Structure formats: structure tokens, C-alpha cells
């Protein structure tokens, strides 16, 4: 068993050693080999491996965190756009008003033509003596059209001035005045507003033409001019 050569002062006996080596032939049990070698393998993992074992869950957590942040950012993005859109009413309002006015002008002309074509039929019996009203109505229509053009011109001028001077975007007063001015434009003729039934007809005509804002405005004015009777 030993490879150490016998020294002079060694008290060992070669015969005893040989007899002992012949006797001692026990082997380590295999289950001990497995246990110890497995323990050695487990302990011999390099340190960077252990570091990776710690880094792996950290990497997962970081990945999940980044994904969540991206999802939250994406979910918040439309709201931000909406907020930005809402924060610019001064720019949006004139453009929409111009479009509305442009849409309204030919329609109002057409509606007036249609009314002119319809009125002789509907008013043949009852309203013939009121020809002067028709003339007044034509004059008021021209007046209405001219007022629309003036409003449109003013809106265009203000839009140009707003674009030229960004500082004007900060103030809401001119835009509010303009919107109120445009909103207080009348869409029904004075002759129609004199009679609640005619006024209501005009409102219904506006609704049929899709001019719901104008109809709502006229309906409010009608309610103010002819308040409903109080119920007892």
C-alpha cells in the first residue's frame, strides 16, 4: 500500500506489512462514492455559474418590468394625444367653423331655393297676400348670406393671424368671442321667427338638412322667444 521505502530506524516489519496488505482488501461502498463525487461536482461549479444562477431571475424581473413599462406607456399614449388635441381648441375651432360654414352656404342656398320652390305650393292658398314678405325674405336671405361671408372672412383672418402669431394661441378670449359670434348667427328668417309654427318648420328643415347645431340654436331661441306655458 505504501510506496515509501523503509528507513533504517523504521520499526516496520515487511512480513507484518505483507500479511496486513493481504488481509486488508476492503473497498469503499459504491453509494459512498456516488455521494462524495456528487458533492464534489456540486461544490466545484465555477463562481460565475453561481453568479448566473442569481442573474437569471434578476434578468427575468428586469425583462418583465420593461415589458410592463412598455405596455403602460402604450396604454397611456392615446390619452396623451387626446390631451394634446384638447389643449389646442383655438386652432381647431376656426378650421371646423370654416368647414361648417362652407358646408352650410350652398346648403342654405339650396334650401332657400327649395323653400322658394315649395312655398308657392304650400302657401298658394293662405300666404298669397304676403308677397312683400317674400321680398323681405329674399332680402333677409341675401343679408344672411352676406353675414355668413363676413363671418367666414373674419374667421379666416383670425386663423391667419393666429398662425402668424403663436402668442395668440395662449389667449382664449378672441376665439370664444368668434365662436359666440358665429354661434349667434341666425339660420331662420325673421318672417319665420315671427310665427312659432313657421319657426318650428324652419327648425325641422334645418334638422332635415343635417344642420343640427343650427337647429338646436334656433330651438333654444324659439324656447326663449315663445316660452312654453306654465302648467297649473
Amino acid at each position, binding site marked *: *500500500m*505504501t510506496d515509501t521505502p523503509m528507513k533504517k530506524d523504521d*520499526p516496520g*516489519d515487511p512480513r*507484518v506489512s505483507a*500479511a*496486513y496488505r*493481504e488481509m486488508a482488501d476492503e473497498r469503499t461502498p459504491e453509494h459512498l462514492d456516488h*455521494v462524495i463525487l456528487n*458533492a464534489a461536482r456540486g461544490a466545484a461549479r465555477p463562481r460565475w455559474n453561481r453568479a448566473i444562477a442569481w442573474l437569471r431571475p434578476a434578468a427575468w424581473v428586469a425583462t418583465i418590468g420593461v415589458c410592463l413599462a412598455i405596455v403602460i406607456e402604450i396604454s397611456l399614449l392615446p390619452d396623451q394625444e387626446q390631451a394634446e388635441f384638447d389643449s389646442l381648441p383655438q386652432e381647431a375651432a376656426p378650421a371646423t367653423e370654416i368647414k361648417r360654414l362652407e358646408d352650410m352656404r350652398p346648403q342654405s342656398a339650396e334650401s332657400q331655393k327649395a323653400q322658394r320652390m315649395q312655398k308657392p305650393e304650400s302657401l298658394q292658398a293662405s300666404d298669397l297676400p304676403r308677397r312683400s314678405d317674400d321680398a323681405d325674405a329674399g332680402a333677409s336671405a341675401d343679408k344672411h348670406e352676406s353675414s355668413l361671408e363676413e363671418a367666414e372672412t373674419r374667421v379666416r383672418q383670425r386663423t391667419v393671424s393666429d398662425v402668424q402669431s403663436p402668442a395668440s394661441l395662449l389667449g382664449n378670449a378672441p376665439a370664444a368671442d368668434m365662436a359666440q359670434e358665429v354661434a349667434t348667427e341666425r339660420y331662420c328668417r325673421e318672417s319665420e321667427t315671427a310665427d312659432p309654427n313657421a319657426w318650428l318648420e324652419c327648425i325641422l328643415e334645418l334638422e332635415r338638412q343635417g344642420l343640427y347645431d343650427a337647429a338646436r340654436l334656433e330651438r333654444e331661441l324659439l324656447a326663449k322667444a315663445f316660452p312654453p306655458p306654465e302648467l297649473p
Partner: protein
Amino acid sequence: MAVTSRLLRRAPRALSQSASLAYAPAMEHRPEDSALMLRYRDGDVAAFETLYRRHKDALFRYLLRLCRQRAAAEDVFQEAWGKIIKSRDNYRPTAKFTTFLYHVAHNCFIDYVRRNKRHGNTADIEPDTQPDGADCPETLVEKSLARRRLDTAVRSLPDEQRDVFLLYEEAGLSLEEIATITACKRETAKSRLRYAVRKLRAALDESPEAP
């Protein structure tokens, strides 16, 4: 001339054969235990396996005869190798690995004795008396009896003498190394070994008929 040329032609092959035979044992790579342990410290598991297979049986026999109980020997054996594995980072090749290994095993045995005060009197080691197929029956019986006598004699040695004898035989340690492990002087270790060998020789010289 023809013989000379034939000899010259054969010479390189004969030289190479003899050279290979002559240098084969010297070129066999057998790394030092300390180098293997250092390699294992750096993560080389194969180095530890080599080291373990080189020393496991001798250490197991040492502990088996020291503990005199197989279960206890297995426990101490496992504990000792576990300490070797744990201490790999702090291992410094300042001494022979065998000294380090048996020192750890000896300390584990001392701890085991302290934990189990009743150790010592119960022995469940049965010597391997299975006969070899090559020997004749008379020789087998003689060998078996001799082994049994020697085993009995080893078990009957005092603990200190048995410890020194086993370290000398199983680990192949010198008296200085044995003295280091057993925490005694070299002369004390030498004396213990001398007494142990004398008793074992007497046991071997006993006639088989003697009681």
C-alpha cells in the same frame, strides 16, 4: 555485408521498440496529489475524481479499523471527504496531500469518538474469508486463519498503537507525518509503531493449533 545491412535496417525499429518499452513507465502521467487538489480548487472535477479514487480505499480501511464499526467508518469517511471538498478554496500545498487527508480523517474520528462515548467495544467488521479459486483448500484455510489472527490482533491493539500502525501501513506516512497527525513526538510515534508491529508479528507467529 548483407547481414550488416539487415541489422541496420532492423535497428531503428528495435531501438524504437526498446525505447518505447524503456520510457513507457517514465512517461506515464501521474499528477501529484497537490496538483490535482489545486486543479479541483479551480473547478476541475475530474482531478478530484482521480484524487478520490487514488485514496478512497486506503482511507476507508484506515477508518474501518479505527472505528471498528462499518456504519461509523462510513459516516466518518463521508465527513472527512466533505471537509476536504469544503476546504478546497483554502487549500495550500504546504505539505503532502496524504498528510492533509489523514489529518482531516483523524480529526473527524476524534470528533466521532467524542460524540459517541460508547464507541470501542462493539465490532462488526468481519474479515473477508472468501477463498480465492486458485489456491488449494489447505492453503486457503491457512490464509484464512492467518488473516483472522492478524485481524484480531489489529483490533486488540491499543487505540494509539493501532492508529499509528494504520497510518503507517495504509497512508504510507513517515514517522514525522504520523507524529504530526497524532499530535505526539516522533519518538512516541516510533515507539507506538514498534509495539504494534511486535504484537502483530507475535500473532502471525502463533501456531494455528494454539488457542
